[in-house]
Each structure stands twice: as C-alpha cells, then as structure tokens.
C-alpha cells in the first residue's frame, strides 16, 4: 500500500488530504505542530486502525525536521505533500488584507511566512529525498498558490505571502530539473481558494473539493508534469 506524508494535518487541506488518503487505503504519516492538541486528527487516527500515525514537526524547526527524517528512515514515501503553510500573522477573516500592505511590512511576519512556506518545504524535500526515491510513485508536491503567480497578480498587496509562494514555485521548478534523473516528480500545486482557517468564510470552495481535486492531479502526475505549476482542477497555471 502506498504511503503519503502530509505536513500541517491538523486542519484545513492537510486534514482533508489525510482523511481522504486513509479512506483510500493509503498509509498516512500525518505531521503537525501539536499532535497532542489536534483533536479532530486524533479522532481520525483512532478510527483508522493504524493507517494514520501522528508525528510532531514544526516547519520552522529545521532541526526537528531532521529528527523526523531520522525517525522515518527507511520508510518509503510515495507522495510527500508540503501542505503546512501560513498566510501571515492574521488570516483573511481576522484582517489579513490590512496587514502586508505597502509601507506596513512587519518583517517578523515576513520571517514566519518565509520560514514556514519556503524554507520548511525545502528542508522537508531534502530530508526526505531518500524516502521518496525509495518509493514507487516518487512525488514531491508543495502546495503553493495562484497568489504566487506573477501574471495573475492583479490585486497587489499580500507581500510576504505572495513572495513566499512565488519563491516556493521557484524551488519546485528547480527540484523538478535536479531530480528528473532519479525519476522524482516535483510539482507546485495551487489548492484552490478554500473555506479553511487560512482562506476564511468568504473563500470559494470547500476544502474537501480542493483536496479531492489535488489527489486526482497527484495520482495522474507523471514526469511530463514535473516542474509545471498545476491547480487542483487540473489546469496549468502561468508563472
């Protein structure tokens, strides 16, 4: 049975992905900052008869990422999903758009966003490369965002978040090139603007829909798709 590692599995897309993959018979390595407090995820794991195991890791703790890789040494990972991410110190419902405006940059916020959305995923890919290489499917997926697309930016603002997602697109493109020889697929994936804690109540889609779409795209991904910026609904997006 294939194995998927998902970061940020406490809620939102991470939780949905964990739930859907487990229902499909996958082994799920569900990672999050505080498994002890992730009530819904714990309940899901308890009901899953061992298919879902919980692992503590914070994307901003690069040393712990190494520790987690040590713990999971030798475990093939068919799909590594860098899902964990933050939009800023506040999400949409809390007033994000008032933050990250020109002239108002909070550089501590910048650091948090870059560390979580960019450095963490890079470290995860590097730390788990042998797990992925040892698997059948060999896929590294990072949830980025259409917000990181240069040509689709008609809105302005959201500096830290946009920068982190554009940069995440950049690293996935590089990975696709560097890892092609080993048959490893690297894809930046736009998950859709969903009604999660991050997206807020006024977002477009249900996270379950975004997750289902992403799983389909991931399932059909081949080396041909590696290094392309894809979306949950199968579209290819412009950089």
């Amino acid at each position, binding site marked *: 049975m294939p194995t998927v590692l998902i970061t940020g599995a406490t809620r939102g897309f991470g939780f949905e992905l964990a739930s859907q993959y487990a229902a499909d018979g996958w082994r799920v390595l569900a990672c999050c900052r505080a*498994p*002890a407090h992730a009530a819904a995820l714990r309940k899901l794991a308890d009901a899953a008869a061992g298919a879902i195991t919980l*692992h503590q890791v914070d994307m901003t703790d690069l040393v712990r990422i190494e*520790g987690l890789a*040590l*713990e999971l*040494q*030798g475990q093939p990972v068919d799909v590594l999903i860098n899902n964990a991410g933050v939009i800023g110190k506040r999400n949409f419902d809390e007033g994000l758009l008032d933050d990250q405006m020109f002239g108002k940059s909070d550089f501590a916020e910048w650091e948090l966003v870059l560390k979580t959305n960019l450095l963490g995923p890079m470290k995860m890919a590097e730390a788990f490369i042998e797990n992925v290489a040892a698997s059948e499917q060999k896929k590294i997926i990072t949830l980025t965002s259409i917000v990181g697309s240069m040509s689709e930016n008609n809105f302005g603002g959201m500096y830290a978040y946009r920068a982190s997602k554009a940069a995440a697109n950049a690293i996935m493109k590089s990975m696709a090139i560097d890892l092609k020889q080993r048959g490893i697929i690297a894809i930046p994936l736009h998950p859709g603007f969903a009604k999660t804690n991050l997206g807020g109540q006024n977002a477009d889609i249900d996270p379950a829909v975004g997750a289902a779409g992403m799983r389909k795209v991931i399932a059909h991904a081949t080396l041909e798709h590696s290094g392309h910026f894809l979306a949950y609904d199968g579209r290819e997006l412009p950089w």
Partner: protein
Amino acid sequence: MPTVLITGASRGLGLEFARQYAADGWRVLATARTPATAQSLTEITEKSSTVHIYGLDVADFAAIDRLAAELGTEKIDLLINNAGVFGPKISEDKDKRQSLGHIDYDIWQQVLRTNTLAPLKMAEAFLPQIEAGGQKKIVTISSVMGSIADAAGGYYAYGSSKAAVNKAMAALAKDVAPMGISVAVFCPGWVKTDLGGSMAALEPEESIAALKGLIAALTPEKPFVFYRYNGDALPW
C-alpha cells in the same frame, strides 16, 4: 491514540522518550523514583494533558506489582524498559569497583536487579495490559557494552547486566510471540545523558528519534536482533 509506559523518565533517554511520544499525542505513563524532584518531566505534563507521572523504583518489585494493579485497566501499546544504572565509573569517578581485582559484588547484584531482573518483572507484571493493547510491543534499552562478541574489559556489573537482559529478552520474545507481542532490545548509542556523560557524541533527541522509528517498525514476525539506534545489527 496509543499508550506508552516508560520507566526512568525523570531524565536522560526516558525523559526524551516521554517528551517525543507526548509531542506525537500519545498517552504517556512515565515513571520516576522521585516525581517530586523530576522537574523536566513535570514541565512536560504542564504542556501536555496526556502525560501522567507515577512514582516507581524498578528495583522494588512489590512496587511494580502495586503499579500494575493501579494501572489494571490500561491498554498499554508499548512498554519501554528504560530505567537503568551504570554502577561505578572508572573514567569519571576513578572508582575501580567494576575493575578486575576490585569488583564490588554487592554493587554487581544491585545493577543486575535494576538492569536485568526489573525489565522482566515489568514485562510479567504488565503482560495483561500489553496483551490488551493494539501494538503489543516490549522494548528494553540495552547497550553495546553487553555484547559478548565485541567485549571490552572491565565494567563487569554493567556489561554483564546488559548481556543478561539481552538473553532474558530473547527468551521472552519466544514466549510471547504466540500472543502477537514483539520484543526488542536496543543500544541507543553513546548519548549525552547523566549516565553517558558529557563526552558522548549523540544528543538524546537524535537517539530517541531514531529508536522511535525502529520501534514503529517492530512486528512479532521479525527476528530478534540486537539493534543499534541507527538500525545496524550488533553482534551478541
């Protein structure tokens, strides 16, 4: 969520096991000889509601029986026999009572009681709870210093206690395999704890993360191997 019972959790490897399993959301039953002075362990309970501390000296077998009775209805997925003593150290304490010509036989017996007998006593006392658990694993922290093939001189009490517990656990493995219980002995590496000393190379976080991985992979069908924390097989 699974439950782990860890002996000797006030410091060192036991504390790190408690910390990491608690962080992963496990229910952690942690024992220490004097919970009142186990500050670091108590701090973990403040961060995590799934960690519980019990007073236990594993050398006191009546106390093990009492704890097993107290925890009678628990389902224990994993027992980690971590509590252990080294005995006198020639390197740091210039104490020769584990050296040829100076062996202290009373100390040797105390070391055997804690390192060799107590792990079996724990296994016997908690067998019902482990059988009731989902994962059914009994893990004992041993040491490469218990290896006979790779024997160094001296450290008669510590070395022999670890060789003996390896043998006892090998027998336990055979006896409990029909119940679907896995038994394993691990050398954690030379770790920076009070026992390992400051010259040790390995941080507890690293050793424990690696051991957790090996523990997760245990099944009753796997052969009984003396694992080093990095997955290498050590010679008996």
